[in-house]
């Protein structure tokens, strides 16, 4: 249909023309004024407490204690069940969050401005690996780290970024792809590049001493530090693509541990959901598939912009880490994702595929026509609250989301 083809051309122009710049780190209450006391933003499409999975509940209890809304985890759970907190998706507030995706008023948020379109997006700072809140961790160690992020790392990063005038991210991603990153389960290159950009300014704005040492060590010690930056730049790129009449391009994919949800440009902000699937992957020593929680997190915004599973060919090391098979399989995954997308990103290319651009612009029509569901590289959380990450793997977006979206788009276009 001509209206769809024209709309998709416009959507691709906006998507590929985005210019994301990491400009600041701000307390969430400043970054998102609509966020108030006892409001908790979470990953995925909307969900009520009764249907939330274990890690999501664990994170909510933890963040309620962290914010001082409850004296204990048990009290926080009772309060949550009694309706004391307001739950909303991050996506409804220009934000994203990995795994459980907790966003509340006092947390420091990365701010990315899309300078081509003037919009901003937000995401919390990555906490590191192991027992962390994004995987449902909520003990004293987890909360102490969040307090350090709020009181030390967040303000220091914000000051450095303001001093720098922001760090353009598009080129940084391009370089990361040539260094073996796919920006979802591997961010070694981009984390290092970001630290190189930040370190001289941090040294000046923080000053020599223990504080600077701790900040540099925290960033340098976390290979996934850049993940949250990749997520928020993805959100900043995709938000201007929303709400183009007729467009069949996916603008968001996300999961809350219970449901998988997608948004499509031509159907506005409506969510199309289906039960989320279980990742297939590899487990850390001592854990098995029986410990795993179903797929979770807003991090699938990374696949929505052509990275993560879509750029697997750039990151053969990831294929092994997530149990996706040989390096040649990584290339096949990227080729398969090219069948469900409308374009290659000419600025984000993959050396191993003779500099083919990452597959960009997921078209729900192509997903349904080919039967190829988007492939997502993901971390795996323990199903019980408070334990943390137990592995990493690959998961597919449920086809039912795309079927529902196709019928809704058709209805809007008067096609039956």
């Amino acid at each position, binding site marked *: *249909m001509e209206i769809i*083809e024209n709309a998709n051309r416009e959507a691709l122009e906006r998507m590929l023309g985005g210019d994301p710049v990491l400009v600041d780190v701000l307390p969430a209450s400043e970054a998102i004024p609509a966020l108030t006391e006892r409001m908790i933003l979470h990953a995925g499409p909307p969900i009520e407490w009764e249907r939330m999975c274990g890690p999501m509940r664990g994170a909510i209890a933890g963040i309620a204690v962290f914010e001082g809304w409850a004296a204990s985890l048990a009290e926080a759970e009772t309060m949550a069940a009694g309706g004391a907190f307001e739950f909303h998706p991050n996506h409804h507030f220009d934000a994203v969050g990995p795994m459980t995706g907790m966003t509340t008023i006092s947390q420091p948020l990365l701010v990315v401005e899309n300078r081509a379109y003037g919009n901003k997006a937000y995401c919390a700072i990555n906490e590191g690996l192991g027992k962390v809140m994004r995987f449902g961790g909520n003990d004293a160690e987890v909360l102490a780290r969040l307090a350090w992020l709020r009181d030390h790392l967040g303000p220091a990063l914000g000051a450095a970024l303001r001093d720098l005038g922001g760090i353009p991210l598009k080129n940084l991603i391009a370089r990361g792809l040539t260094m073996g990153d796919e920006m979802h389960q591997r961010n070694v290159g981009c984390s290092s590049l970001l630290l190189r950009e930040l370190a001289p300014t941090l040294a000046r704005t923080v000053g020599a001493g223990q504080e600077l040492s701790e900040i540099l060590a925290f960033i340098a010690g976390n290979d996934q530090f850049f993940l949250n930056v990749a997520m928020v730049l993805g959100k900043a790129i995709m938000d201007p693509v929303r709400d183009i009449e007729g467009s*069949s391009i996916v603008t968001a994919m996300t999961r809350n541990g219970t449901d998988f949800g997608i948004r499509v440009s031509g159907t506005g902000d409506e969510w199309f959901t289906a039960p989320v699937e279980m990742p297939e992957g590899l487990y850390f020593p001592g854990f098995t598939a029986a410990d795993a929680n179903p797929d979770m997190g807003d991090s699938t915004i990374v696949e929505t912009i052509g990275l993560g599973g879509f750029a697997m060919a750039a990151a053969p090391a990831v294929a092994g880490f997530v149990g996706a098979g040989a390096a040649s399989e990584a290339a096949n995954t990227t080729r398969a994702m090219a069948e469900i997308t409308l374009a290659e990103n000419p600025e984000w290319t993959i050396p191993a595929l003779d500099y083919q651009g990452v597959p960009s612009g997921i078209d729900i*029509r*192509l997903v349904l026509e*080919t*039967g190829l569901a988007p492939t997502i590289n993901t971390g795996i959380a323990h199903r019980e609250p408070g334990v943390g990450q137990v592995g990493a793997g690959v998961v597919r977006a449920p086809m039912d989301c795309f*079927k529902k979206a196709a019928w809704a*788009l058709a209805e809007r276009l008067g*096609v039956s």
Partner: protein
Amino acid sequence: MKDKHPASLFVAPPRVVNIGLEAFASELASQGVEVIHVEWVPPADGDPKLADLLSKLGV
């Protein structure tokens, strides 16, 4: 009229292109038959109503 059964079919080893169910290709390959497998599933997961809708939406 063109010969529908060229003699070469019976004198040369078979070369197979398998479309769809991978088990057929695996079985032939295990018997030493040259086979190329093409991944394919029916459009719209075999749902005729959805396939019709997709054709109207321009796929």
